[in-house]
């Protein structure tokens, strides 16, 4: 979606309104199944089965063992439906070839729209189900609530997210807004301006860069007011905005901030809560788009006529603000490309969150049990990181090594998982 918008800019073409709505409709379905996979398969088992439960039980099987088979069937069914929506709108659920410079390759048929409308009540109910589950299982359980509200998972940074013209969360198009740790807007830019606002620091030990706010300069891995680091993931989007653009999601947004006593929220476990609010927003926004008469407009593409040159596209990916920047020759052949993917934005915050969790839960001279190791991993998991996208590497494995060092820097113990 970001590359589609970037290529529109490369060809200097404004796409028809119906094309933008179809792209957004497709994208809302994507957001739903991406967030659902993360919450139900990866995040919820930590809370439902327990953070210190054996790994063999702390998974989606353990989750449905506790919550019930109906939930599992509903997750599978609604994910299947959202991908079906994507197929009906864009031909394929993954790697569609329908998103073209100047719009999309085909209009939505009335028959497919009616089918999608039939799915809407179930999708919105599925969005509400996640929030109810979170409330019942996490918020009503003191031990888990203590984890959410405790200082083991806390990081004070700036927050980034796309907002609409009323500063409400949006995923497909808008202005990038950044607020400081007090919630005050400190930066705002449109796609074409990103290079003046964001820069990428390089460390020799990592393929992955460390973005920061250019006007504040690279200050290292420092949190707190004045830091140039920012988060760009579900909680960051909600912190950076003034609200949600749909009613049920807005009510959930208000409830979350009331629970924390205001905004912005720096408790990292709130990313899970924010992710579920976004899932509900995506369902409601999907419903709005399906009800919009313009969605059936057959005018879905403007054939580009300008000579291609350079373009930038920005969207909110499930894991954070996604920027695509292409420079082409006069034939449209890409000569330069830069991508700042969702996870890349969060590289420094992830590193710092993991370190803080390790220091908090393992502590000086502490014993790193499997449960504590998982508590550290939970700091990583809240960002739903996609390192294969961020580093363009596909190892298919997640090795983890923790070295426990004493005050002299000597390694006391190493724990590894291949």
């Amino acid at each position, binding site marked *: 979606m970001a590359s589609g918008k970037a290529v529109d800019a490369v060809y200097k073409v404004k796409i028809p309104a119906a094309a933008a709505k179809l792209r957004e409709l497709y994208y809302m379905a994507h957001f739903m199944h991406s967030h659902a996979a993360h919450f139900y398969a990866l995040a919820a088992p930590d809370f439902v089965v327990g953070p210190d439960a054996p790994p063999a039980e702390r998974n989606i099987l353990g989750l449905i063992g506790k919550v019930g088979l109906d939930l599992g069937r509903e997750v599978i069914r609604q994910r299947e439906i959202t991908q079906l929506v994507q197929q009906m709108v864009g031909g394929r659920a993954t790697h569609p070839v329908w998103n073209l410079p100047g719009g999309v390759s085909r209009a939505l048929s009335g028959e497919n729209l009616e089918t999608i409308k039939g799915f809407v009540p179930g999708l919105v109910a599925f969005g509400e189900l996640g929030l109810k589950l979170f409330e019942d299982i996490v918020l009503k359980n003191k031990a888990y609530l203590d984890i959410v509200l405790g200082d083991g998972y806390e990081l004070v940074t700036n927050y980034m997210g796309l907002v609409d013209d009323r500063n409400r969360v949006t995923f497909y198009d808008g202005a990038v807004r950044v607020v400081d740790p007090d919630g005050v807007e400190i930066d705002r830019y449109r796609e074409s301006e990103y290079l003046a606002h964001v820069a990428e620091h390089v460390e020799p030990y990592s393929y992955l860069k460390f973005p920061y706010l250019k006007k504040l300069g690279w200050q290292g891995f420092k949190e707190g007011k004045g830091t140039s680091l920012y988060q760009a993931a579900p909680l960051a989007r909600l912190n950076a905005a003034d609200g949600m653009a749909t009613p049920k999601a807005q009510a959930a947004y208000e409830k979350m901030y009331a629970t924390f006593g205001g905004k912005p929220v720096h408790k990292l476990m709130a990313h899970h809560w924010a992710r579920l609010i976004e899932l509900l927003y995506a369902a409601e926004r999907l419903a709005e788009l399906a009800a919009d008469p313009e969605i059936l407009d057959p005018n879905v593409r403007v054939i580009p006529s300008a000579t291609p040159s350079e373009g930038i596209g920005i969207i909110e990916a499930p894991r954070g603000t996604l920027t695509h920047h292409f420079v082409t020759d006069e034939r449209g052949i890409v000569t330069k490309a830069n991508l700042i993917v969702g996870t890349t934005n969060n590289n420094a915050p992830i590193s710092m969150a993991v370190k803080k969790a390790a220091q908090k839960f393992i502590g000086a001279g502490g014993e790193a049990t499997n449960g504590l190791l998982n508590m550290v991993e939970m700091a990583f998991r809240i960002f739903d990181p996609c390192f294969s996208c961020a580093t363009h590497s*596909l190892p*298919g494995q997640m090795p983890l090594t923790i070295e426990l060092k004493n005050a002299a820097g000597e390694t006391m113990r190493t724990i590894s998982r291949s």
Partner: protein
Amino acid sequence: MKTLVLGLGNTILRDDGIGIYAVRALAGRVDGAADCRESECAGLDLVEMLRGYDRALIVDSIQLEGEDPGTVFRLKPDDLRITARLASLHDIDLVTALALGRRLGFAMPADVTVYAVQVADALTLGEECTEAVAGVLPGLVDEIAGEISGGGCAKISRPLGERKRRDA
């Protein structure tokens, strides 16, 4: 026996498309004996894709250290935490998908085999496999077609236990 042949991959990343190409080549040869399906997804989607089949033959790419490009490994689900799409940091793996489907009461295949082809290049944009990987496609298709028909065929695949570097 209801059989699915599932090709996983991405046809714009050179050798990563081998699973898709294999399934496309098989489609005309196994009419009625198996359903042929291709996908660029895995994870939770596997539950729906595999549901209702007695047997599943999955073709995917693999990237193991020290192996020769074009080597075809024959894996069983328990081996499977090492291919690009069948193990993921933000989704479930094949073993979990099979167990989840069964726990939910779905009919999941009892017999699952994965043919994993060692890639030479799965990171460069391109719609053709490298020579080494393209070269094994006919033999791989013959082997899978023989497996489906029960007629047998020379095997070019080898068990994962025969990888060169067991410690890699």
